[in-house]
């Protein structure tokens, strides 16, 4: 099932993403005329995933292979802050506080940019 709402987030590679393509003409008259459109799609993703695994030393087992998945596979992503029960309550209170007119609650005051 397609979960993307539109093509902004259903990302199709464009010319800049595509490597140079080698075209090899096969002179095989005994085969006659055959189609090669779909068959190329079958091994392509697997071949790229193998190349990525070769480069990283670890496998990324879902597509597309995006920067977040590569960093996760490499163990480079710090653990997300564990959400404790008290944090949940605090977030809920902040939400109620924020929904009152005239209030400007701040969850992360200490990171105010200057």
């Amino acid at each position: 099932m397609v979960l993307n709402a539109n093509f902004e987030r259903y990302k199709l590679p464009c010319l800049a993403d595509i490597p140079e393509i080698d075209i090899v003409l096969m002179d095989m008259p005994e085969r006659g005329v055959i189609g090669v459109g779909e068959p190329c799609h079958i091994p392509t993703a697997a071949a790229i995933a193998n190349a990525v695994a070769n480069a990283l030393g670890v496998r990324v087992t879902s597509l597309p292979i995006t920067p977040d998945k590569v960093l996760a596979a490499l163990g480079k992503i710090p653990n997300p802050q564990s959400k404790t029960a008290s944090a949940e309550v605090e977030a809920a209170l902040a939400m109620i506080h924020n929904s009152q007119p005239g209030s400007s609650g701040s969850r992360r005051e200490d990171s105010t940019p200057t």
Partner: protein
Amino acid sequence: MKPFDYVTASTPASAADLVADGGKYLGGGIDLLGEMKEYLAEPKRLVNIKALPGTHEIKEEEHAWNLGTNVTVAQIAAHPGIQKKFPGLAVAAGEVGSPQIRNVATLGGNLAQHSRCWYYRHRDVYCLKKGGDVCFALDGENKIHSLFTGCTCVSPVVSNLAIILQALEAKVTVLRAGKQVRLTIPELYHGAWVNDERHNSLGPGDLILGVEIPVVEDLRSAYLQMSEKHEFDWALVSCAAAGLVENGKLHRPRLVLGVVAPVPYALQEVNRFLEGKPIDDSTAAGAADILLKNASPLEHNGYKIPLARALIRRTLLQLAT
């Protein structure tokens, strides 16, 4: 899309008059027409501002360059003077959308564009940004969202130009209630830091007229972003830096991160740390430590921290070359 009136304004004052009572300014229309097609914006009147005199020009003066609000993103990317004097700005402009979008999108529109959060952009989702009670991204699909926010909404600023213009200490001229005011980039976006429903600090009738970039002799600048695609994609994280480099050491440095907060994210503490430091890996790591120390990653956006660290290092090193 709902029916609307269309008028062309010939002066900024008449544009402001025409937009009152449910109108919207129309520049390139890249962001606005998308919102109208998705029923996120339903203006009664579109006020075309492309005929405003003097707003299509890039003026080079001794102490500052002035870019009109209708200067296209493509013009900025291709301008030889900008490429030489403000290389980071030319690169940031070249990373916007696709060639077709850059040819139509304007400087003013790029700065004023709205959130790309997929919950906000869905017409059936009534989120905090639209006046609802819940930020669905907090516990939902939050891969593209912010590491920092001053309110609850975690949709990040996505304008490339804002990030580099903050590093260049540019000022934005805004027509507000009949008067021209000059806002810094932090002032232009502060509204989004403190208020869930704001994309920036602009009021409904406020009109961006242009941007002034101060000329600092020998100033270097750089911009880098990381996206999932090489072209025609939003940055996952972006980074801009500007400063003077003498004997390999940084002076007057400004480091800014994009797409990690509702505003271009910078800390004076980081700029003070960088002052006088040699440009190398350990300086970059120190700056990243300070800038990212209060990051609050959500379930799916923790990867932005290592990405930001890498971009900070690469962008600073680019200043040295």
